[in-house]
């Protein structure tokens, strides 16, 4: 299944992706988990940037949007909405607005 994925600008730069989207051939029933599996296989430098490599949990300040819905809290193994599956809409991986967090971290 061909799935469109829109990535944040920093990840497009890291992976040398031109344009806002990549199109991935995702095997089986597309889910958030299988889309990220496919993304990481195609672009190994993105491993760990969308989800933690050990826990496979979504990074706290990233969100998944699908057809104007926030599906970040859905099961990563749930089938994606049909608008994503049929290619009409991209799965959007978005950086949440989190200004100031790096200063809180401090050193």
């Amino acid at each position, binding site marked *: 299944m061909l799935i469109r994925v829109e990535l944040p600008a920093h990840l497009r730069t890291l992976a040398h992706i031109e344009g806002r989207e990549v199109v991935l051939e995702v095997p089986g029933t597309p889910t958030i988990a299988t889309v990220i599996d496919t993304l990481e296989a195609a672009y190994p430098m993105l491993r760990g*940037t969308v989800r933690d490599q050990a826990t496979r949990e979504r990074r706290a300040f990233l969100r998944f949007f699908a057809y104007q819905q926030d599906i970040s809290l859905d099961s990563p193994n749930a089938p994606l909405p049909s608008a994503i599956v049929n290619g009409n809409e991209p799965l959007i991986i978005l950086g949440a607005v989190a200004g100031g967090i790096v200063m809180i971290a*401090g050193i």
Partner: protein
Amino acid sequence: MTANGSQVRLLVGTRKGAFILTADAARKKWEIAGPHFPGWEIYHIKGSPADPNRLYASQSSGWFGQIMQRSDDGGKTWAPVGNNFAYDGVPGTHQWYDGTPHPWEFKRVWHLEPSLTNPDEVYAGIEDAALFHSTDGGQNWAELSGLRTHTTGSAWAPGAGGMCLHTILIDPTDPKRIVIAISAAGAFRTDDGGTTWKPINRGLHSQHIPDPTAEVGHCVHHIAAHPSRPGVLFMQKHWDVMRSDDAGDNWHEVSGNLPTDFGFVIDVHAHEPETLYVVPIKSDSEHFVPDGKLRVFRSRSGGNDWEPLGKGLPDRNCYVNVLRDAMAVDRLDSCGVYFGTSGGQVYVSPDSGDNWNAIVRDLPPVLSVEVQTLA
């Protein structure tokens, strides 16, 4: 090293990217390249002593986590390498700020220390504190877990900036002897290449912990040593500047006449093993230089007697900090001293600290400064 034809290359990590500053031996005219990795925090960049064109960089972000970068051409081009820092086994817990157990969680790489002899070998100090090792140019990382699993590990607690392993000193005469430091656990040493470790904090005195002379729990900010005397260590602790003449087994205070002995950086002159540099910071609640004056303090006697160095540095209305990895010395005949500030300035002294100039004034806040002396 002969000055003729020599170059220096500064590797500057900032909150919003990396910058590479180069100059000839006069160190007056600088070329500034960057930002590399714009928008990302670059905690540290360091070059291999065995191959100066091999650089490693720690790139991180609150959104996207940790990326590791490698350059094989002195920083002109970069490529991501491995970023999987998996603790060995089930990592268990350390103490949280309130004394409760808290799971060990990887957050970022603070410090990179390439091998002195092998460009493909590099150590990484991470938060939550652990030491990792790569022998394939950063593609794969394995934890030297004897450190984290030390019997005191479950009692370690973070400092205000996190529980970070920020200092890695490899003994040039015996690469199996490595000194590391963790905020706020203290200093540790291995004599067997990282299999076993022992705390080396005897003589440290820290009022902020229940037992001021405890075996662990000290907020060590940085440690430096001269390559010719790896057993002589100099430490900037949270408060107190300390010295050890036996590879850390015993420490004594050498703060002497410093106006304040709080600070982050400490370094040693390239050719004078008893000449030290620190940048005193007003206090742990006011992270800026005292009296609005930016001054480096130099001791030419291994500590205790310190002189202020401010020629060319701001002498009023200056309220910057200098973080723990943000000072370096080059190895030219006339030793160059460098530091970067939280205000984005990078300063150079081409004459051991007597005179200072700003190389650049308006970078993002500087996290780290390293220098390479190139023939």
